[in-house]
């Protein structure tokens, strides 16, 4: 990867210094640790939300089974309409929670991918600076 703004490159201890004319920009490779930590946190959030979404989906399945059982029961007895309505309301609420959690999980996964992409680009940049394959 070649960088658009050509900078000269100096390596002083752990700090990398890019210079262009009188401009100077200090690069701190340790920043990569922070970015990696952010990416890991995003991955964990995404993973937790996926698990939560799976849990909500399971709750929905349980409620669906309850509805089925309650429907059969009320058909036999000819009563229990109120009970069925209450379960259906619970099902609607559970379905809304599933949709919300899935949406949050997708957002978290996008955020993780974006954070990971940035980490990869930074790793490539630092590798090329250290390897001497940099635009001057």
């Amino acid at each position, binding site marked *: 990867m070649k960088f658009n703004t050509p900078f000269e490159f100096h390596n002083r201890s752990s*700090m990398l210094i890019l210079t262009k004319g009188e401009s100077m920009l200090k690069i701190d490779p340790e920043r990569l640790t922070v970015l990696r930590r952010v990416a890991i946190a995003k991955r964990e959030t995404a993973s937790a939300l996926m698990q939560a979404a799976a849990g909500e989906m399971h709750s929905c399945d349980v409620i669906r089974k309850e509805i089925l059982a309650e429907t059969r029961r009320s058909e036999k007895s000819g009563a229990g309409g109120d009970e069925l309505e209450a379960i259906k309301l619970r099902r609607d609420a559970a379905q809304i929670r599933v949709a919300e959690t899935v949406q949050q999980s997708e957002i978290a996964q996008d*955020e993780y991918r974006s954070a990971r992409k940035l980490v990869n680009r930074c790793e490539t940049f630092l590798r090329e600076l250290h390897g001497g394959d940099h635009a001057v």
Partner: protein
Amino acid sequence: MPFDVGAILRRSRSGAEAIFSGLEDIRKQIIVEKEALASIQSQPADKSTTVMRFDTWMAKVEIENVAGEIVRRLRAGSYREPSSADYSALALASVSSQIRETVQSEIERHVDAAPGLSDDQRERAVADRRERLLILELAEEAMIREAERAGLDILRRGDADVRAVLADEEEFVRCR
């Protein structure tokens, strides 16, 4: 410096809302700068550059060059008969002055519609835009770090400039 990073940062200290709106401002400016950069890169070449490129290309099909090459082959000790492609090249070269005239008038017409940039102008304009972009990206990163210190979680752009993202903290102290 075309953008006052320090002023942008001072604004951000008034609270989280200001951080978010300041960041939004900077991100908008980054988009505008990137569009301006793309626009410079897609500008056509100016007249002298276009004529120079045309001349370089035409020199290869000038009658003297093509005829000279055929004569060299006809006289070569290890003779190989010129091909029909050589004949076509010769025929084309013999009308090169008409081709030159036609293309030159076409160049005039295009340049009148859009003057374009010389290679030097383009290089300078691109360098200037990239410099502005880097300053904006540094300001964006400075804001994100301030927000992080305040406990706010702001996602960096996946296409952020890695030089800004990895910049040493000292770079931002100078901006404050």
